C-alpha cells in the first residue's frame, strides 16, 4: 500500500523537531517496546512556579507516522501548563498533523500515553496506561494489550468496529485470535453508551426554546459528529440554524468525498435522534 501521509506528517518525519533526551528531566514517559514494533521515550522539563512545560524531547522507534506524531506532540506541549497538556487527546495529535491513516492511529495513542506517563512521573502518580497494564486480563497476547486499555480507547475515540480497535491499540493486529474477545468488549461498551444516551434522551426532549435547541445542535455537532469526521481528516462548518433547518458545509476530506451523501444522512439522523425529530439538514457546496 502506498503511503497516504499528509504533507505535515512528511515534514515532521523528514525534519523531526525536538529529537533527543533531556538530561536530568523533570518527567519521563516510556511506552511501547521493540517487540511491538514501536516505542516512544518522552522527556519533559517543567517550570515548577508556573506548572508549564518548558522543554520536551523525544526518541522514537517506529514508522513514519510514529516519528511524526512524536515530533508534533513535543511541539504541542511546549509552553502549556501540565493540565492543558493533559487535555491533549490522541485525536488532537492526529488532527494537528492533518490526519493519520486509520491503521496508524495507534501512533497518536502512543504519543498521548507517553505524555500522560511523563506528566504523571513528574507528579509522582501512576499513569492511566500503567494502571491498565496492572488491571484487567490481557486480551491481545501478541502486543500485551489489556482489557482496560481497549475499553478506554473505545470510549475516548468513539470506536465502533474491531478494525477501529486494532488501528488505535494494535490489539488483534497479530495472530488475530483475540478478535472475538475484542468484539465482546466492543459490544459491551457500545451497549453502555447507548444506555447512557437513552438515559439523557428524556431530558433533551424537554427542549422548549430556540436557544436551547441551538445550543444542543452545536453540542451534538461538536461532541458526536466532529470527532468522527476528524478521524478521517474531515470536518464541517456550522453555517446557520433557522428553526428546524440546520445548514452546514463539509470541509477537509469530507468535502467532495464520494461517501458524502451517507455522512450527511448520518449527521441528520443524529440531530433528529438527539435534538428534534423535525430537523432537516442542508449542505452547502464549497
Amino acid at each position: 500500500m502506498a503511503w497516504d501521509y499528509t504533507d505535515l506528517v512528511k515534514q515532521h518525519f523528514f525534519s523531526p523537531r525536538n529529537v533527543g533526551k533531556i538530561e536530568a528531566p523533570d518527567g519521563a514517559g516510556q511506552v511501547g517496546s521493540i517487540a511491538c514494533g514501536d516505542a516512544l521515550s518522552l522527556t519533559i522539563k517543567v517550570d515548577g512556579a508556573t506548572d508549564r512545560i518548558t522543554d520536551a524531547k523525544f526518541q522514537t522507534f517506529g514508522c513514519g507516522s510514529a516519528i511524526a506524531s512524536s515530533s508534533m506532540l513535543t511541539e504541542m506541549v511546549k509552553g502549556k501548563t501540565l493540565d492543558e497538556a493533559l487535555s491533549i487527546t490522541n485525536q488532537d495529535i492526529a488532527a494537528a498533523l492533518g490526519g493519520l491513516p486509520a491503521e496508524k492511529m495507534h501512533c497518536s495513542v502512543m504519543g498521548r500515553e507517553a505524555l500522560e506517563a511523563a506528566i504523571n512521573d513528574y507528579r509522582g502518580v501512576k499513569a492511566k496506561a500503567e494502571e491498565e497494564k496492572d488491571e484487567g486480563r490481557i486480551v491481545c497476547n501478541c502486543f500485551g494489550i489489556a482489557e482496560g486499555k481497549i475499553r478506554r480507547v473505545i470510549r475516548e475515540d468513539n470506536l465502533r468496529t474491531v478494525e477501529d480497535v486494532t488501528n488505535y491499540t494494535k490489539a488483534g493486529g497479530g495472530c488475530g485470535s483475540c478478535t472475538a474477545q475484542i468484539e465482546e468488549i466492543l459490544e459491551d461498551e457500545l451497549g453502555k453508551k447507548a444506555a447512557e444516551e437513552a438515559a439523557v434522551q428524556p431530558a433533551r426532549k424537554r427542549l422548549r426554546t430556540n436557544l436551547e435547541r441551538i445550543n444542543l445542535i452545536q453540542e451534538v455537532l461538536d461532541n458526536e459528529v466532529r470527532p468522527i469526521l476528524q478521524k478521517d481528516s474531515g470536518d464541517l462548518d456550522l453555517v446557520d440554524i433557522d428553526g428546524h433547518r440546520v445548514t452546514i458545509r463539509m470541509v477537509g476530506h469530507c468535502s467532495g468525498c464520494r461517501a458524502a451523501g451517507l455522512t450527511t444522512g448520518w449527521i441528520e439522523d443524529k440531530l433528529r435522534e438527539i435534538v428534534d425529530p423535525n430537523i432537516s439538514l442542508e449542505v452547502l457546496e464549497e
Partner: protein
Amino acid sequence: MRTVYLDNNATTQVAPEVVEAMMPFFTERYGNPSSMHDFGGSVGKVIEDAREKVAACLGAEQASEILFTSCGTESDNTAIRSALLSRKGRKRVLTTRVEHPAVLNVARQLEREGFDVTYLPVDRDGLLDLDLLREKMDAEVALVSVMAANNETGVIFPFEEIARIAHEHDALFHTDAVQAVGKIPIRLADSDIDLLALSGHKLNAPKGIGALYIRRGQRFRPFLLGGHQERGRRGGTENVPGIAALGKAAEIAAEHVCDERTRVRALRDRLEAELLKIPGTRLNGHKEQRLPGTSNVSFKNVEGEAILLMLNQEGICASSGSACTSGTLEPSHVLRAMGVPFNFAHGSVRFSLGRYNTDADVDRVLEVMPPLIARLREISPFRD
C-alpha cells in the same frame, strides 16, 4: 530525480522486446482465438508458439504441459486444488512456514476443510531440514508444496530433491517458482516436479499473465470452469497479448539466466558487502543458497517503513518486511520463522536487483544508506 528501482521481486519492468511482441494483439490482431474465422483463429498459433517458449524456458518435455493462467496466485491455487482432487482419500499436506500467501492462505483454508497441514520450520538461515521432511512423510500425504525460492530472502530450496522425497511416498509435488524462473536454471523434464507455478510480471512480462506446468500424464482438475479454452483445463477467453508477452519474456529469461548468475549477482554482492559494513547490520537468509539478485538486510533498532520512506524520498525503491508495511502489525512471517530477533526483524530491507540495474544504481544506494541509518538511529530510543 532518477528512480533507482531495486524492487524486482515485487515486479519488473516489461522488457521493450516484450512490449513489441504483445502490441499487435491489442490493435491489428485482436481476434478471439476461439473464433472460426481466420482473423481470430490465426491468433491461436501465437498461443502455441508462446507455450513452446515457456516450456523451453522451464526445460519441460512438452509444450502441452504448460497451462496459461492469469497470475502466480491462480497457478498456485489451481495446482494445490487439482493435486488434492487427484489424490482423494489422502488428507495430509506438507508445506513450509515461509510460503507466499498464495500458498499459505490456501493451506489455512484446507485446514478449515478438514485437511491436516504440516508447516515445516526453517532454520536461522531460512533453510529446510530435509530429514525432518522425510520424517513427516507418510502414506497419508497427498501433496508437498514447497517454494523454489523465497520472495523475501531469496533463499533457494532444494526443490528437485524435495520432489524426489514426495514421490518416494507417492505424494505429488508442487512448487511456487514465481521468484525462481529466469533467475536460476530449471529443468523440469529431468525432475520429479509435478506442478510448477510462475508469474509473468516477475520476469519482465506484464501483470495479469501466469502459467502452470502440469507434468504430462498427471490428472488435472480445472479451477476455472468455462469454455473449452486451454484444452478444457481453464475456461475463459485467452489473454492473447499477455500470453504472447510471456512467451517472449520466457525466451529472453532463458538467455538471461547466465547474466543473473554473473553480472546481477556481482552487483548484489557489492551492494550487500558495503551495507553489511554499517554497524548493527545483518543479512537475512543463507549467504550462498540464494537468488542472485536478492539481498535482505536488517538494520538493528530502526524501523523498516521509516527506512523505505527516506529511500523513497531519494528516488530509491525497495521493500521491507517490517510490520508497518505488511498490512498486519507483526513483522514478516518469513523473518519470524527464521527466528530473526525483533530488533532486526522490524528493520529489514529487501533489495532485489534485476536485468536493468547498473553499477550506478548500487553506487546511489551506498551513498544514501549509511547517513540515512545513522539519522534514524539518532531518533531511536534503542540506539544504545
